[in-house]
């Protein structure tokens, strides 16, 4: 063995070593005199930024010392989260400084999925991608390239680049988030996200003209249906707000959910509904309210008929709704929407349904809020979403203090011309069936002019099918045109795991043609973490983490609030910011001769991230001076507001009477930095109405909401416009065919969900063999992306993410007092039951029948003969006949997941059990919550 004496023996060999060294310094350089002082004594630098550990994007205050991020707190100046910060946000350091993060570009060696990569330089990686994209564009057209900007925001640079490149097929996570849930608010209000009026503080104009931070809660009833804000944290203020309203204002909280979520646990009432029947509940409530409303009774004045002044199409809607009352449902032999029918369908007692309907009708102000899991993940979720919106509007709760606010139409605008959407208007020519056709690039969109003419949020769930079969356009100028998909650029999403069933994705991505080449020649991942989608890519580009780049928050507040995601630390390792990646790739494409990429649209224009963000800030806030109290009494009512809060406040504006705009000084990065990173504009309610002094009443202001008519639409003009496009095309879409529709409906409609033996006759035959409905929900992790963070593996959640691990070994620091810092890296043995793993939550009755106790291993199988293994967690907190898993918690097959990767063989991957062919008929959303399973003990 070697020792120092023998080392000295090699001194002869030292000369040989000399030839193998490299002269001079490589990583080090002499320090300048002026640098020396500042490097030695660095105080703490405080920066204000926006989180990205989950899409809530809370305002954060980050402490930096010696160029290192050391502490994370909530930013008190941001009303959205008011200084709070959840466990995910607080654990950001373990992501930013993870030794497992992607550090440099990598190029695949071996087959896709083997996980073999070699380190490459940026030049090499960009060259590889640029050359392939150029070739694909020449041979198949730019539209054959998909840009999927994935899971979290800061996507604008990528969208801009690929729009300019010439493809309209540019996506983001929303497609597989919860599109059916957004449907009702979109059709009827032009928005997408109804939330209770719970954001406090709100900035309110006082009668004396001053602005005050109002902390008072006005809610008296909140009903959450299929929504778990305390764990999903997507709307941060619902955590503190829900309970503050309860404690401070006596607000009653009702949670309707098959499982006892943390939100349900703190509610006044938990109604464990049968999965997939929220539409039934809402329909029953609406019928009860319509039949029992009595404007002359104080107790039963359910409906505020004033809503008719601010809406149109109610009579048609009511007729369509009532037309079902006389029909008999074949599943139950009861008339649709009667309380008896609702009771049988939902599994909630008739008395409770009546009580709930009466409560919602008679308590004001109130909000009925439905969430991602339901109806967002159900085949027929649209129905529930439309009914939910209706119920809020007719009871007079829409946009009132303490009521229901559509936060999509109250948030600040951002993006402007930086998003590159105008590139889609460029005209191109294609040959369709021998004829040359001209049209705008956007008319080549694979979904809205292909199989999904209604899907305004795009469709990712059917990518595997399109990778294999190619796109066939059916509508618009280019109808009849076909093109293949030849490149898939995935940025910070993880569609291989989450975009429906992984096996479908893997099959499509690894499929080869007869000459042995991949049918999809190019797959690129741009990310900070090494997730499952990266394992299958050809090139991996390291993107700077959220603390290392600059952009803007994307949040759902009750009034315009916008804050800066400031770059807190320099990009680590060789990672680059989205702006740099955009410019690098743009320059490469330009150098390779792409005429659609111009220097002045990219690196010539955006020399820094700040340039890009400043352009994105130009339209802010872009909301209207409407409602009571009027946000800016000194500015014209109904005009669009643009500019910083202080310039609007001081009247430093130009009024454009033609465009009806009040333009102040544009918000800039510099302005935000001077104001703790955040711009806050005033709140108002009743934003749909204005005062008519002559008649002494309120009338519709025709500015808000954001529908075509600027009124609440019970008759759906969006559908009317889309139907025109469809009727001029090559037949109705497959989704509409599934429903037996020749046209899109003009108003209320009803249809059943998939994989539900209790409500859809098609599935009755499975009821006996597959007795459990499977649902899925969030845990204290951000979906699939953060599961490698050790701290978060210590946050058990609701029976679906529990410390039930098998003993395993993983590298970690362990105590060794002999070492200076007291630690050494070694393989640590994790004892059983100390690390959270995905588990299956099951009711104790069901467990007893199967002879199961908590910790037992089970096998879960669906009618498609797909199965996963899991440990079971037995509890009283779920409806019998229902079982639940957590998103992204199990079966994780990328080594980048650290300790969680070691648990893959006995933890359930929910997506393995999803039916990849069940896509909701209008928006193409994978139906994550529509599934039934059988379970056996292992």
């Amino acid at each position, binding site marked *: 063995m070697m020792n120092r004496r023998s080392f000295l023996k090699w001194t002869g060999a030292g000369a040989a070593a000399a030839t193998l060294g490299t002269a001079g310094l490589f990583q080090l350089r002499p320090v300048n005199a002026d640098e020396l002082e500042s490097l030695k004594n660095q105080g703490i630098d405080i920066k204000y930024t926006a989180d990205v550990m989950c899409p809530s994007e809370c305002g954060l205050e980050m402490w930096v010392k010696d160029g290192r991020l050391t*502490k*994370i*707190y*909530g930013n008190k100046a941001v009303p959205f989260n*008011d*200084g*709070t*910060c*959840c*466990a995910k*946000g*607080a*654990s950001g*350091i373990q992501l930013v400084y993870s030794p497992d993060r992607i550090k440099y570009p990598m190029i695949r060696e071996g087959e896709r999925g083997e996980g073999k990569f070699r380190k490459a330089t940026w030049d090499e990686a960009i060259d590889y991608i640029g050359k392939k994209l150029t070739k694909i564009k020449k041979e198949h057209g730019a539209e054959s390239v998909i840009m999927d900007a994935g899971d979290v925001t800061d996507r604008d640079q990528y969208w801009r680049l690929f729009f300019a490149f010439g493809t309209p097929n540019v996506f983001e996570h929303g497609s597989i988030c919860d599109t059916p849930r957004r449907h009702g608010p979109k059709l009827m209000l032009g928005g997408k996200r109804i939330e209770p009026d719970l954001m406090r503080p709100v900035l309110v104009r006082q009668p004396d003209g001053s602005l005050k931070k109002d902390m008072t809660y006005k809610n008296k009833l909140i009903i959450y249906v299929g929504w778990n804000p*305390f*764990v999903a*944290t997507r709307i*941060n203020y619902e*955590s*503190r707000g829900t*309970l*503050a309203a*309860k*404690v401070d204002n006596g607000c009653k909280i009702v949670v309707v959910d098959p499982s*006892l979520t*943390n*939100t349900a*646990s*703190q509610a006044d009432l*938990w*109604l*464990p509904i049968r999965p997939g029947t929220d539409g039934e509940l809402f329909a029953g409530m609406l019928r009860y309210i319509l039949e029992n409303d009595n404007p002359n009774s104080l107790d039963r004045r359910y409906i505020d008929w004033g809503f008719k002044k601010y809406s149109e199409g109610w009579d048609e809607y009511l007729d369509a709704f009532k037309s079902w009352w006389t029909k008999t449902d074949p599943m139950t032999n009861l008339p649709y929407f009667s309380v008896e029918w609702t009771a049988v369908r939902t599994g909630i007692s008739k008395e409770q349904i009546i009580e709930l309907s009466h409560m919602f009708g008679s308590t004001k102000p109130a909000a009925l809020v439905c969430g991602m899991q339901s109806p967002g993940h159900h085949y027929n979720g649209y129905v529930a979403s439309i009914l939910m919106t209706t119920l809020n509007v007719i009871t007079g709760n829409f946009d009132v203090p303490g009521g229901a606010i559509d936060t999509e139409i109250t948030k600040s605008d951002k993006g402007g011309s930086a998003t590159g959407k105008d590139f889609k208007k460029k005209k191109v020519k294609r040959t369709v069936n021998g004829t040359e056709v001209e049209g705008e690039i956007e008319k080549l969109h694979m979904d809205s002019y292909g199989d999904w003419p209604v899907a305004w949020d795009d469709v990712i769930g059917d990518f595997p099918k399109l990778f294999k079969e190619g796109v066939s356009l059916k509508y618009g100028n280019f109808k009849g045109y076909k093109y293949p998909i030849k490149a898939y650029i995935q940025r910070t999403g993880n569609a291989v795991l989450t975009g429906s069933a992984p096996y479908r994705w893997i099959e499509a991505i690894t499929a080869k043609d007869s000459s042995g080449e991949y049918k999809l020649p190019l797959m690129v991942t741009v990310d900070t973490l090494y997730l499952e989608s990266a394992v299958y890519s050809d090139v991996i580009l390291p993107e700077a983490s959220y603390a290392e780049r600059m952009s803007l928050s994307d949040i759902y507040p009750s009034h315009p609030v916008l804050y800066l995601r400031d770059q807190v630390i320099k990009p680590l390792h060789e990672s680059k910011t989205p702006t740099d990646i955009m410019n690098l790739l743009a320059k490469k494409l330009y150098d390779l001769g792409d005429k659609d990429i111009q220097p002045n649209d990219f690196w010539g224009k955006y020399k820094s991230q700040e340039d890009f963000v400043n352009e994105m800030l130009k339209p802010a806030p872009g909301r209207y001076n409407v409602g009571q109290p009027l946000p800016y009494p000194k500015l014209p009512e109904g005009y669009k507001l643009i500019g910083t809060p202080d310039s609007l406040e001081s009247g430093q504006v130009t009024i454009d009477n033609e465009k009806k705009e009040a333009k102040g000084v544009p918000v800039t990065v510099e302005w935000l930095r001077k104001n703790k990173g955040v711009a806050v504009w005033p709140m108002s309610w009743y934003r749909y109405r204005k005062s008519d002094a002559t008649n002494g009443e309120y009338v519709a202001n025709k500015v808000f909401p954001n529908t075509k008519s600027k009124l609440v639409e019970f008759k759906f003009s969006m559908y009317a416009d889309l139907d025109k496009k469809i009727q001029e095309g090559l037949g109705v879409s497959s989704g509409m065919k599934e429903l037996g529709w020749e046209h899109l409906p003009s108003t209320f409609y009803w249809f059943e969900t998939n994989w539900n033996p209790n409500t859809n006759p098609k599935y009755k035959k499975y009821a006996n063999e597959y007795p459990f409905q499977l649902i899925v929900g969030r845990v*204290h992790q951000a979906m699939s992306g953060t599961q490698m963070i*050790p*701290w*978060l593996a*210590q*946050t*058990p959640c*609701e029976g679906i993410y529990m410390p039930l691990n098998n003993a395993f070994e993983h590298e*970690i*620091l*362990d*105590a*060794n*007092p002999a070492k200076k*810092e*007291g*630690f050494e890296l070694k393989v640590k043995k994790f004892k059983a039951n*100390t690390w959270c793993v995905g588990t299956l939550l099951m*009711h*104790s*009755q069901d467990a007893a029948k199967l002879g199961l106790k908590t910790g037992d291993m089970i096998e879960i199988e669906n009618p498609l003969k797909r199965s996963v293994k899991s440990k079971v967690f037995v*509890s*009283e*907190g*779920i*409806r*019998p006949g229902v079982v639940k898993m957590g998103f992204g918690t199990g079966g994780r097959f990328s080594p980048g997941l650290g300790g969680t990767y070691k648990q893959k063989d006995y933890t359930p991957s929910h997506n393995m059990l999803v039916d990849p062919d069940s896509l909701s008929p209008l928006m193409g959303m994978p139906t994550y919550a529509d599934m039934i399973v059988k379970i056996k003990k292992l």
Partner: protein
Amino acid sequence: MPTEKKRYGMVIDTRKCVGCMSCTISCKMENGVPFDGFRAWVDMTERGDFPRVKRNFIPKLCNHCENAPCVTVCPVKASYVDNDGIVLVDQKRCIGCGYCIVDCPYSARYLHEGLKVADKCTFCVHRVKTGLEPACVHNCMGKARIFGDLNDPLSEISQYMTKNGVQTLRPDLGTNPNVFYIDADINKLPNKGGK
């Protein structure tokens, strides 16, 4: 203007706790707590039969008792109470005997694997001395933790306690905790909230 010395305390309003465990993780972030240790945590127990089920969240930490058993039992006087009522451990004096860990009726202490000394919540004394609040209080998602000077009748915490009925854990032991609970139904907790 209070001229007496300070007495720091905390109120945990369990009516506002959402069970997110940000307190647990924010504390780890702030104080570099090792993987197997916890200075703050949340006890969660499921109670009731379907459908009348509740999951109780009881956030816990060191109670910074006025009459702290951990201080009396320490053989080398490493555990002490500072001028503002915060119970601290001088980790240079601590010999890691573990008596205080066993003796604490709230399981608030643990043996730091690396340093081999007793460790526990310090009310983020390093932040408090500069006028900031503990990390768990700042970050709490439910705004369920209120911290401040109990000797100042006008402080937020004093006013909060006046308005709401509070309880402490294991009041029978005479430890006189400075951590108070609202609506934790302590009499129904196993062993009245002790270990």
